[in-house]
């Protein structure tokens, strides 16, 4: 069991961590949880009163104190029973794996049944209970007992006359037990107004523990409370406890401190893009992760991814399913390409499927506690935790989760919880208000645009790491979960086919633009060619004109010459004297 030695109260307490301060010596009960609450056990060498109504486990608690004392702490014990005989008691606890006959044979235990039958007894004057003292003293001395149980000493009141004498004698008995130095448990039936029917709490005042069982919403839960513990701090709350096949188990509602180590180790989520969103490395080891979302948003798929990733790393994952059977989960996950079956077969993945209504919250918690203790997983998945919230038991669920988260953290187990939220505007509010307990919170939400429903994922919070503030589109493909960048553009956030349409449209626009450019380039080319052609034509025209002009000039010159010639000829013919 995990010792809670981290209390900070300035009072003498827990024996095992005896420091400079004087500590009240304690006798460990060996009962899971009880030693945590009492800071180490019952007051050593003093009597403790355990009271409660019928059937709430007084005898069993007392018996475990003796048996575990003998088996685990090497402290022999005397069990003096006033109500059940030796045979019945032996049979009753045999189912818990306690072999009383063996302990008795090994001189580690004395079981003494005190038979009182009122009708056989006639009172004729003053008496005392010296016979009981002698008998008990003999039993104690025979085995050197350190522990004594008187169950239920109140039977004396119905078996013997004269309560006045009995009271005086009981007072003497408890003093005597103290003098003997034995740690004693006295059980008492709960009275109407008092803790015990005969007011034993007046005599036994060192430590009083009340057991109780009550039924709410048809589910019975047992509770234990340390009413009083002289000279020691103790947990004061009502703690649920269980009686199962291993006996008594008390669950400290909250461990008294917040002292767990925070790992800097990171573990992948199983979805690469999600890792990227969480600072590129995934969750912290030993943190608690919640995925909340409306129905059908893919919470379980993320859980399966995480479990699969853990198994792939060779770690053990424990999957508590409260809505689906293991087979159903494996089948469904196979459809999105996550095959959990091999891991289950290899023993790395264990399922534990129960209906939430199968037991009270405490029973669930202890079952989980035990499973976790046995299997020692690195990853624990609860799918979904909201199924516990039946009726208005929100505070109980919260306290249960707190204990669970606490336990997981102390053991450096990463907890992954899914939480179903009712569709509505306030998504940032889990049905079970546990956000303060959670380190990483992923929110899956529907995005309804353009007549279709798509899934979006974003990181609502993630303590201690830089995380993305972006909404990613969450796709369930046949090879698992995929996260896509959503379309963020002038048209807003688009997902699904709207995103595809938008992308197509952009593609088309781009294509058009390219074509336009090409067209313009062609046109330019054409223009240039036209221009060049024009230039060439003009050039040719010019050439032609030039040639013609030259020709005219030549003709003119020729005519000039001809005229000259003619003039000369005429002159000659006139025989001018020049």
């Amino acid at each position: 069991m995990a010792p809670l030695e981290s209390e900070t109260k300035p009072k003498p307490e827990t024996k095992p961590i005896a420091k400079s301060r004087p500590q009240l010596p304690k006798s460990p009960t060996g009962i899971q949880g009880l030693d945590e609450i009492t800071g180490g056990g019952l007051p050593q060498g003093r009597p403790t009163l355990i009271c409660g109504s019928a059937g709430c486990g007084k005898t069993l608690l007392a018996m475990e104190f003796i048996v575990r004392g003998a088996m685990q702490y090497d402290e022999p014990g005397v069990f003096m029973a006033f109500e059940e005989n030796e045979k019945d008691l032996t049979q009753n606890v045999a189912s818990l794996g306690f072999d009383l006959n063996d302990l008795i044979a090994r001189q580690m235990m004395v079981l003494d049944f005190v038979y009182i039958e009122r009708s056989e007894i006639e009172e004729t004057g003053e008496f005392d209970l010296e016979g009981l003292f002698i008998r008990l003293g003999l039993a104690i001395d025979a085995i050197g007992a350190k522990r004594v149980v008187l169950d239920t000493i109140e039977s004396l009141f119905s078996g013997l006359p004269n309560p006045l004498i009995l009271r005086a004698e009981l007072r003497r008995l408890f003093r005597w037990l103290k003098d003997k130095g034995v740690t004693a448990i006295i059980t008492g039936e709960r009275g109407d107004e008092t803790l015990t029917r005969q007011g034993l709490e007046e005599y036994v005042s060192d430590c009083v523990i009340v057991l109780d069982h009550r039924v709410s919403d048809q589910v019975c839960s047992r509770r234990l409370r340390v009413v009083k513990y002289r000279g020691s701090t103790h947990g004061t709350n009502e703690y649920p406890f269980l009686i199962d096949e291993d006996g008594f188990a008390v669950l400290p509602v909250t461990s008294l401190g917040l002292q767990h180590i925070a790992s800097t180790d990171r573990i992948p989520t199983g979805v690469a893009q999600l890792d990227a969103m969480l600072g590129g490395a995934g969750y912290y080891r030993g943190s608690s992760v919640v995925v909340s979302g409306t129905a059908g948003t893919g919470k379980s798929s993320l859980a399966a991814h995480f479990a699969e990733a853990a198994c792939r790393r060779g770690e053990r994952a424990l999957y508590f399913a409260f809505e689906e059977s293991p087979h159903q989960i494996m089948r469904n996950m196979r459809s999105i390409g996550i095959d959990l079956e091999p891991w289950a077969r290899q023993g790395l993945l264990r399922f534990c499927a129960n209906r939430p209504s199968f037991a009270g919250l405490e029973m669930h918690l202890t079952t989980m506690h035990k499973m976790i203790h046995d299997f020692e997983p690195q990853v624990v998945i609860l799918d979904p935790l909201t199924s516990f919230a039946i009726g208005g038991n929100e505070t109980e669920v919260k306290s249960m989760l707190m204990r669970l988260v606490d336990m997981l953290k102390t053991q450096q187990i990463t907890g992954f919880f899914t939480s179903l939220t009712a569709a509505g505007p306030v998504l940032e509010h889990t049905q079970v208000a546990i956000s303060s307990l959670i380190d990483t919170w992923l929110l899956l939400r529907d995005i309804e645009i353009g007549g279709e429903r798509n899934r979006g994922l974003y990181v609502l919070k993630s303590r201690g790491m830089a995380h993305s503030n972006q909404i990613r589109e969450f796709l369930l493909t046949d090879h698992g979960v995929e996260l896509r960048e959503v379309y963020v553009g002038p048209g807003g956030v688009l997902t699904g086919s709207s995103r595809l349409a938008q992308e197509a449209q952009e593609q088309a626009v781009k294509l058009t633009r390219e074509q336009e450019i090409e067209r313009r380039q062609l046109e330019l080319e054409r223009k240039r060619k036209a221009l060049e052609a024009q230039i060439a034509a003009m050039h040719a025209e010019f050439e032609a004109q030039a040639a013609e002009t030259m020709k005219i000039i030549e003709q003119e010159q020729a005519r000039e010459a001809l005229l000259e010639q003619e003039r000369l000829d005429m002159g000659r013919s006139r025989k001018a004297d020049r």
Partner: protein
Amino acid sequence: MTTKPTTPSAPETEPAQAESDTFILRLYVAGQTPKSMAAFSNLKTICEDHLAGRYQIEVIDLLENPQLARGDQILAIPTLVRKLPEPVRKIIGDLSNTERVLVGLDLRPRE
């Protein structure tokens, strides 16, 4: 059961003649306390008065034989156990109330 034998001679009329012949009585005490002493002397007187000649008293001091307390389921001290005749009867206290002792020993009818 045995009735009416109030005279010291104690004429027996019931069928359980043989066993009611002798009363085997055990007185459990723890040391020589005033209560034990008183019980013993009261018992002696009652027996002499009502069972003269047909009783045996065995005094067991639990301080000397503590293991005997378990056998007869002794809690209170002093306790007088009527071993015979059957059924076993237990009478606790210092036996100062003679009437009740006689009732306890079935020498007087219970009201």
